[in-house]
C-alpha cells in the first residue's frame, strides 16, 4: 500500500474525475466516443512507456515529438509509394531507432547532457522536416486505414496492442535483467558499473528503444486516418513527460512504475474531453491542465514533507 501510494493517489484522482463525470455528464460514457478517445491515446501510451524508461534511467528525451513527425511522414510517403504495410511499419520503427541512436550516441557516447542533446535534435528534426515538406499533407492510399480492418476491429487492435506492450514492458522491467539494469543505472550509475552493468551501453539502448517505440507509435497514429499531418506529434513530449511524472516516475531517476504512467496518461487525456462535456469554455483549459499537474505533485510533496518532519 505504502509502496504504491503515489500511483494509487493518481488512480483515486482519476476515479474522482470519472465519478464526477458519471453524475454530471453521463454522456461521456457512450461506448463509441470512449473507444475513439482511447484509440487516440494508444500511440501516446506507447511513447509514454518509452519516456518512462528514459526518465527512470535518469535521462530525458524532449525530441520525441519531432521524431514522431519524421516517422509519420516517412512512413506515410513509403505507404503512398505502395510499400506493403508490414514493411512500412518496420521502416518507421527503424527510422525511429536511428534517430534514437543519434540521441543515444551523443548522450552515452559523448556523455553530453540528454536534455540539451534532445533539445538540439528536437529543433533540428522539426526544422529539417518543415524545410523538406513545407507542411504538405501526405495522402495515403485506400485500404491503409485501420490496417485494412473494419473501424471497430482496427480501434480494438490498436488499443490492445498498446496495452499488450504496456504489460510486456511492465513485466520486463520487473523480471528481465535488462529491465532491472535501467532502474539500477537510474538509481546510481557508478554503483551499477561496480555491479558489472555497463551504464553507458544501457542508456544508449534505452534511447534506441525510445526511438523505436516512437516509430511504432507514429504508425499506430498514421493508420487512424487517411492522411498524415506533418505537424502531428508537436507538443507530444510535454504530454508524455507530464503523464510519466504525474504517474509517479521520479525525475531524479530509478523510481517509477509503468502502470502508474498508464493511469497518469488516462487522467491527463480525460481532462480535455471532460471540459468539453462539462461545457467549460476552452479559455480555461491550459490553466486547468497546469493546475492539475501542480496539484498532483504538490500532494506528493506534502506527503514527503510530512515524512521528513
Amino acid at each position, binding site marked *: 500500500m505504502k509502496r504504491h501510494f503515489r500511483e494509487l493517489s493518481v488512480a483515486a484522482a482519476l476515479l474522482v474525475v470519472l465519478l464526477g463525470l458519471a453524475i454530471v455528464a453521463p454522456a461521456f460514457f457512450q461506448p463509441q466516443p470512449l473507444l475513439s478517445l482511447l484509440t487516440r491515446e494508444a500511440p501516446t501510451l506507447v511513447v509514454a512507456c518509452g519516456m518512462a524508461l528514459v526518465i527512470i534511467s535518469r535521462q530525458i528525451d524532449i525530441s520525441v515529438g519531432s521524431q514522431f513527425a519524421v516517422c509519420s511522414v516517412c512512413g506515410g510517403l513509403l505507404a503512398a509509394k505502395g510499400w506493403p504495410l508490414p514493411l512500412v511499419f518496420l521502416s518507421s520503427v527503424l527510422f525511429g531507432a536511428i534517430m534514437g541512436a543519434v540521441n543515444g550516441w551523443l548522450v552515452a557516447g559523448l556523455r553530453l547532457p540528454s536534455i540539451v542533446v534532445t533539445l538540439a535534435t528536437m*529543433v533540428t528534426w522539426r*526544422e529539417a522536416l518543415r524545410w523538406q515538406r513545407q507542411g504538405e499533407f501526405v495522402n495515403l492510399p485506400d485500404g491503409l486505414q485501420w490496417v485494412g480492418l473494419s473501424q471497430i476491429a482496427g480501434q480494438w487492435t490498436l488499443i490492445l496492442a498498446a496495452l499488450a506492450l504496456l504489460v510486456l514492458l511492465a513485466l520486463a522491467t520487473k523480471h528481465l535483467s535488462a529491465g532491472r539494469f535501467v532502474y539500477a543505472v537510474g538509481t546510481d550509475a557508478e554503483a551499477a558499473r561496480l555491479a558489472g552493468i555497463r551504464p553507458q551501453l544501457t542508456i544508449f539502448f534505452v534511447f534506441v528503444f525510445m526511438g523505436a517505440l516512437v516509430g511504432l507509435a507514429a504508425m499506430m497514429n498514421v493508420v487512424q486516418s487517411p492522411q498524415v499531418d506533418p505537424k502531428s506529434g508537436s507538443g507530444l513530449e510535454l504530454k508524455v513527460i507530464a503523464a510519466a511524472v504525474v504517474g509517479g516516475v521520479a525525475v531524479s531517476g530509478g523510481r517509477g512504475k509503468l502502470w502508474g504512467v498508464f493511469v497518469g496518461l488516462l487522467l491527463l487525456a480525460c481532462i480535455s474531453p471532460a471540459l468539453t462535456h462539462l461545457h467549460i469554455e476552452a479559455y*480555461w483549459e491550459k490553466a486547468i491542465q497546469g493546475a492539475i499537474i501542480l496539484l498532483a505533485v504538490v500532494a506528493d510533496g506534502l506527503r514527503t514533507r510530512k515524512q521528513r518532519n
Partner: protein
Amino acid sequence: MNTDKHGFKAILLRHETILLFVVLLEWLYFNSVGPRFGSVDNTFDIMRHSVEIGLLALVMTPIILTGGIDLSVGSLLGLCAILFGKFWRDAGMSIPLAAACTIGIGALAGGLNATLITWLRLPPLIVTLGTFSLFRGLAEAITRGADTFTNFPASFLFLGQERWLGIPAQAPIFILVAIGIWLLVHRTTFGRSFRAIGFAPEGTRYAGISVERRLAMAYVLAGIIAAVAAIIYTSRLGQAKADAGMGYELFAITAVVLGGTSIFGGVGTVHGTLLGVAAIAVLNNGLVHARQPREVAGMLTGLLLILALTSSIISKMLASLNARRQTSVTKPIIT
C-alpha cells in the same frame, strides 16, 4: 614561463573563448555575404531583437547554476504583458505604476515557483512545467485569447522602438541587468552559493548556507526579470496579447547551455550566456542577410548546440589529461 604558456592555452581552450571565435566567424562570414549585415542599423537591430530572450537567458543562468530549470518564463512573459496592458488600459494606471505592478506580479509568480520548489522540495522541471501551462492559461483566460492591448502612448513606445543617446533605448536596461547579474553570480557569496548548490545541495546545506533562501531568490528574480522583459516586449511591438513570448523559455535555455553552463549545475558563467545569446542572435539575423530560410536557422542552432557541447567536452578532456600529465611531475593544479 611554462605556467604562463599553460595559462594562455587554458584560456584559449575555455568554452567562452571557443564561443567568441564562433561569434566572430559568424560575423565575418555574414559580413562577407550580406553587404548591409555589418551596418550600425543592423547591429542595433540584432540587439533590439535579442533583448527579451537575452534577459530571460541572463536570469536563467543562476537557476541552471543551481541545477534547476525554469520552463515558465516564456508563459510568464505573456501573462505579464497582458496584465501590464490591463493595468494601464482597464485600471487606468499610469505607465510607471502599471510597470511597477507588473513587476510585482512577476515577483509573485516567481514566488509561486520558488515556494513549490523550496518548501515542498519538488523538482523544478515539473513545477515549472505546471506553471508553464498555468501562466499561459491564465493569460488566455483573462483576455479570452482575443483581447489585444494597443495604442500605448508614444513616450512608452520610445523604450522599445527608438534610440536614446544613439543606442536602442532598451539597451541600457539590458546592460544594467547583465552587469547586475554578472556581479551577483561572480562577485558575491550569493553567486558562489548558487554554484555550490548545483554541485552538492546537501553539502551546501551542511556548510551552513540556507539553500532554500538562495534557491527562492533565483526563481523570484526570474519572475521579476520576466516581467521587465514583458514590458520591453510590449513596447517593442506596440501590442500585448496572450500569445506573447511563446517558446522563449527554450531559446533562453539554449542560449545558456550554448554559453557553457552545465545543465546539471555548478559550472557556468554569465558572460558565457551573453556570448550564447549573441551566437544565436547573429545566426538568426545573418541568415536573413544570407537569404536562407528560417528553417535553416533552427537547424543550425541545433547543430551549433551539439558542436559547442562536444568541443567543450573535448577541451575539458584535454585539460584534465594535461593536468594529469603535469601532476605526475609537479604539484596538482587547483582550478
